[in-house]
């Protein structure tokens, strides 16, 4: 019996010691990331059967258990991957948001200054100083376009770098996870499924959680303790002990963008669809680039393109201080068509994107595909597509997109694909090309006059030039009134007659000479027979500011997005878009933080270490140890009693 008591005492000592060790382990790892608290599970030893029943044989350590919930941990991981995506998105869009926050640094004041400078010339059309200020403020405006776009371009470059970095981290993590999978399988195969390699599981879980911070992965628990991981559309990156790597490489469509591709178990390389890579930092970066940066750059480009095209068109209808027709004020901008790197290299086809009407441009990119018979153009913002047998047939005349396509001297091969970006580069390419203030086309090339000998009170308006056709005017056109037929006989220009009945038309009647600069003028009043009016080249009309007024009117015209908004409006819309997205992601981010805190609390509530609890355990197991020690002392004393009996 004495020996038995000794033995039971020793099992108690051992059990208390194991519990103390585990408590110590918990206390030491209280702040270790990913640590799950452990608990010693004690059991009774098999009892000894005697004639009077079963006698207990003391305690033993069954296992050391991780206090862990698969469900809670999965929730935390999901919350973290989403949170990391918002964080990355918020960080990137914050840069744009701050760039546009200062109204002195944005496009707005530069555009306003430019149009103000134009207005200030109206009072003194011959003042070279005022004309120079138009050119200087135009240069400032184009430089502002360039620098804003450059800043966006830099954000894009930085994202490329971060994508490569993220892919490197992913590759490192998946190979570590695969190694842990191996080790855990080996360790647990000897201990059996009830005795788990707790600390190794924690370490692997920490790595998986880190991987989730970069990109969302789905897990699949295997019976041998390994965890298989999948990304994107279900591409496996970890299967048991093997890891498959991702690659960051220039896009097939646009070499300036870094994309992620996957090397499958068989060795084949698969381009991962951007929108399937969600969650984590990588998901945030890709989604920011796709949903915000591209659109912002396109929107800014559209404003630049609109100003350049429309200002040039009006400027070229004018006449400068030297009496010559206006030339281009800004450079002529065109869209870009990027050939896919998979295009036929023999045909080496080129596509030109010519801007035909800036008011019809959208902020979307387009994809052009040629299947050997038909050209298909797809608008990427809403996937609307058009097909035609000729390149000039897309986009069709019925749904103008503001640009036309041609392939110059080259011919597309079947299977060729192009990424069409009508407005992407406009803001970086816009320049002020007019440098001579004398060449600012302030006047219109045509003026009107009434003969001094006229005896009636008929009047002719100053008129406007509306097209470049037939400019400069070949010579004077005279209109002579014939009271008997109520017509003006036109000599020169289009010739013929103009019907004008003073009794009904004296309030003003508008005429247009389409072939003479589209010259549009009003005749009014009551001319007498033989009264003449002259439409002539505006020789030495340096004091004329009609074209300037037309140029200034572009500022408030609704000439973009199919006539729904103006330059400033389109810019404001872009700012509002970015602001709204930044706001949305901020709101999501704070909501996600709350969610993350909540699920982390629940998970920690189960698996985290509470030092007070451990302190209490420390006391408890210390007392258990002391009690077991006392039991051995008692056994010793009992033995002594027996010995004294013999003495």
């Amino acid at each position, binding site marked *: 019996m004495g020996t038995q008591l000794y033995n039971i005492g020793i099992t108690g000592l051992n059990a208390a010691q194991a519990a103390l060790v585990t408590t110590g382990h918990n206390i030491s790892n209280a702040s270790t990331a990913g640590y799950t608290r452990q608990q010693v599970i004690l059991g009774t030893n098999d009892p000894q059967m005697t004639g009077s029943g079963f006698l207990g044989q003391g305690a033993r350590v069954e296992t050391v258990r991780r206090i862990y919930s698969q469900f809670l941990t999965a929730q935390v991981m999901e919350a973290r991957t989403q949170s990391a995506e918002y964080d990355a998105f918020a960080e990137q869009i914050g840069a744009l948001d701050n760039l546009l926050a200062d109204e002195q640094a944005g496009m707005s004041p530069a555009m306003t200054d430019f149009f103000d400078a134009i207005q200030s010339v109206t009072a003194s*059309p011959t003042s070279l100083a005022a004309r120079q200020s138009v050119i200087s403020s135009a240069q400032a405006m184009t430089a502002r376009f360039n620098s804003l776009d450059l800043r966006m371009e830099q954000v894009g470059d930085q994202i490329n770098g971060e994508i490569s970095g993220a892919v490197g981290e992913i590759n490192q993590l998946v190979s570590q996870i695969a190694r842990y999978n191996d080790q855990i399988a080996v360790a647990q195969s000897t201990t059996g499924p009830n005795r788990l390699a707790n600390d190794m599981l924690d370490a692997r879980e920490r790595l998986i959680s880190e991987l989730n911070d970069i990109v969302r992965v789905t897990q699949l628990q295997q019976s041998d303790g390994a965890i298989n991981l999948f990304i994107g559309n279900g591409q496996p990156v970890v299967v048991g002990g093997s890891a498959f790597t991702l690659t960051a490489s220039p896009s097939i469509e646009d070499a300036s963008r870094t994309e992620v591709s996957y090397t499958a178990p068989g060795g084949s390389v698969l381009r991962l669809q951007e929108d399937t890579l969600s969650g984590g930092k990588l998901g945030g970066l890709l989604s920011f680039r796709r949903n915000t940066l591209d659109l912002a750059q396109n929107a800014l480009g559209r404003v630049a393109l609109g100003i350049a095209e429309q200002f040039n068109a009006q400027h070229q209808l004018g006449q400068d201080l030297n009496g010559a027709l206006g030339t281009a004020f800004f450079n002529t901008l065109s869209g870009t068509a990027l050939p896919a790197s998979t295009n036929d290299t023999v045909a080496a086809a080129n596509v030109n994107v010519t801007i035909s009407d800036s008011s019809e441009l959208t902020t979307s990119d387009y994809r052009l595909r040629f299947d050997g018979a038909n050209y298909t153009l797809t608008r990427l913002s809403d996937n609307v597509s058009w097909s035609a047998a000729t390149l000039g047939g897309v986009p069709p005349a019925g749904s103008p997109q503001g640009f036309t396509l041609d392939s110059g001297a080259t011919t597309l091969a079947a299977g060729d694909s192009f990424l069409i970006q009508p407005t992407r580069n406009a803001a970086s390419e816009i320049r002020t090309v007019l440098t001579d203030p004398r060449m600012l086309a302030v006047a219109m090339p045509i003026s009107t006059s009434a003969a*001094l000998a006229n005896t009636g009170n008929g009047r002719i308006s100053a008129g406007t030039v509306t097209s470049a056709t037939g400019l400069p005017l070949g010579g004077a056109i005279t209109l002579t009134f014939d009271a008997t037929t109520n017509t003006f006989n036109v000599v020169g220009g289009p010739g013929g007659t103009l019907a004008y009945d003073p009794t009904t038309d004296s309030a003003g009647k508008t005429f247009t000479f389409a072939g003479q600069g589209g010259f549009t003028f009003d005749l009014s009043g009551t001319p007498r027979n033989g009264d003449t009016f002259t439409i002539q080249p505006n020789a030495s009309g340096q004091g004329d500011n009609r074209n300037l007024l037309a140029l200034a009117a572009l500022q408030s015209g609704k000439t973009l997005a199919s006539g729904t908004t103006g330059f*400033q409006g389109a810019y404001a819309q872009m700012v509002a878009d970015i602001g709204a997205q*930044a706001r949305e992601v901020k709101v999501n981010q704070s909501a996600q933080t709350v969610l993350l805190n909540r699920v982390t609390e629940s998970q920690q509530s*189960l698996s985290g270490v509470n030092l007070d609890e451990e302190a209490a355990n420390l006391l408890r197991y210390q007392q258990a140890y002391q009690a077991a020690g006392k039991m051995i002392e008692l056994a010793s004393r009992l033995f002594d009693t027996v010995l004294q009996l013999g003495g």
Partner: protein
Amino acid sequence: MRISTNTLYDTGTSGLLRQSSDLFRLQQQLSSGRRVLAPSDDPVASARALEIDQSKSMNDQFALNRRDATSALGFAESQLATAGDLLGTIRERLVQARSAALSDSDRKAIAIDIRAMFSEMMGIANSRDAFGDYLFSGYKSTTQPFSGSVEAGVSYAGDDGQREAQVASNRRLAISDSGNSVFMRAPAGNGNFSLTPDPANRGTAVLDSGSVSDMSKWSDPNNPGDFDVVFAVSGGVTTYDIIDNSSGNSLLTGAAPGGAPLPRVFLKGDTITLRSNGGSEPPFDFGARFSMTGAPADGDRVSMNISSAQSVFDTIGDVILALEQPASGDANALAKTSNAIGSAMSNIDQANDNLLTARARIGSRTTELAALDSLGEEVNLQFETSLSNLRDLNYTEAISKLTQNLSYFQAAQQSFMKVSGLSLFNYIGA
């Protein structure tokens, strides 16, 4: 609920971080005075603000345009006022010159005086603005508009262009007037028709400026507006005929003009009316008439034309030349001088009217500019109010929020210190 020690610390620190970032934001708002620090704070307000900013700056620019327009109009107005005064002085001289008591040398002296005023008028018509541009040359602002002399006449080298300025978002206003409209386009004679005695007349008839008694008849499109009144004196009786130059026929007979005696008899001081007297005369009525004093000689003619444009320089030049002609003692020459002075006076009246009209146009534009100015100021105030509502901080609200947040922050700090200080280990082994 079981709380892990990590949660205790994490929750505490994240709460403190969030509160300090709120405080930082409030502090930024207070120091900048802006409610909206970045577009993301209020995307709609920032876009609205951008558009209002543009409208406001356009409004400011229109105010500058109005200032320029007002000064340009003011400059032109002062030139035209001087020109008007000058015409008034010339007219006074002409009243003097008409006096029968004057000798040839007296008239020459007046002519010299008017010559000086002619040059002064040329100076006004060729005046330049602050930028060195000619005020009255239309679009050809670098071309001198008027050149010539009394003898050779004055020609206009400008055009009919009228410069405009954008003075409000939907209003363009003319800020210049061409020399043509100001100096060249005054209607001749009495404003409806002009009377010109034939230079070869030998009589002593002196014409008045004539008048239109029925405007609707005179301005009828069928009025040819081109007549000759021909006189014949035979047997001591003065008769006359009115010839319609467009047809070449006599108005009074409807047939080709015949010889003396002519259809109507002229008595001294008679009024010649362009209206059928009935009887043998075919019906016609152009609602116009003129009268004359003195006696026309046989074959004297007076042509009567619908008014066309008369240059103020021609008017002054012609009368100077007429005044310089010797006339004393020659009744016919005196009558010619009188006629020249009379016609010049009515032309000057018309020119003055024309100048006054131009000045009235300028005046009404200036008035409109002033009205637009006060409207622009009101609009500006509205823009500023909207901008302020969109962007600016409500200080009272922000400061009270700051005080509130500060006390929350302090409470969070203190409670964190208290809670984190609790540990069972403090009591073990004590």
